[in-house]
């Protein structure tokens, strides 16, 4: 089993690593990443791209699906605060957008 790590979550998919390439079944590709294969082209809801020559090696059976700099820049440039849900110490989930109507002073910190 192979694991896709994305957006703070992870899910197992039907895939294997061969010669440093991750091979996903067409079903796994659609389920995990929302892309479909048509005549050597990968398509999702908004675009089609030629099939990449090879995926990055998913060491120890996992791959991280990141978001491109362009997409991040576009989102941040819109100035609409990207939404997220994270839990507090008690395990209670909080969604940023549920604080609409209040001014939010958001501060990232760490014990380190």
């Amino acid at each position: 089993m192979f694991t896709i790590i994305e957006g703070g979550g992870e899910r197992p998919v039907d895939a294997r690593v061969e010669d440093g390439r991750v091979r996903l079944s067409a079903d796994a590709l659609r389920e995990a990443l929302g892309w479909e294969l048509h005549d050597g082209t990968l398509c999702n809801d908004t675009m089609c791209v030629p099939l990449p020559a090879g995926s990055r090696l998913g060491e120890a059976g996992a791959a991280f699906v990141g978001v491109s700099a362009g997409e991040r820049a576009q989102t941040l440039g819109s100035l609409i605060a990207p939404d997220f849900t994270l839990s507090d110490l008690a395990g209670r989930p909080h969604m940023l957008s549920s604080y609409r109507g209040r001014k939010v002073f958001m501060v990232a910190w760490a014990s380190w």
Partner: protein
Amino acid sequence: MWQALYDELRDLRFVVIAIALDKSADDARPWIEKAAPTYPVLIDTQHVVADLYNIVNVPTALWIDERGRIVRPNDVVFGTDTFKHITNLESARPLAAVRAWARGETSGFAASETRGLQTLPTALDQQARAEFGLAEWLARHGARDAAERHFVRAGELAPHDFTIRRGSMPIRGIDPMGPQFREMLQAWVGGGRPYYRPLPDTRG
């Protein structure tokens, strides 16, 4: 750390949301339990918020208005002067600015100013976050050696990202206050690069 500020301003439809970029809830727990905050403190072990907002160090603060718009982008704000002797950054002025904003005396930056002050991620930043994300997963699943390779690679791709370089130290069994951190900081600052770069004040 932010409790006094929150107590003072909460009736003005103001909230503090703190995000702990820690390797586990247990790492953040002693700090949270000691502070006993009544505002939300959320645990972000996978650096979801760091990725979404291009946060590269802590503390990093943003202002988000009632409509969910960023009106002051990523800035370094300390709640106390505990680290002033190291950072040269004092807390009084930025906290006064937050108060003025909460009271409606200032509305933060205009959209064009905010955009001008934002630091947007590069392709290398995002690649580094992917390496970190994979490394964090590998470490969590006991693949220590593989995780280490990806943590190192992440730090090479984004040497300015302390959430990756210093934030990964506790996961890797390295003391984040120890010699390796001091060496890293010295090399960084010694190269003429600032550890923290505060934004200008908002106009009243």
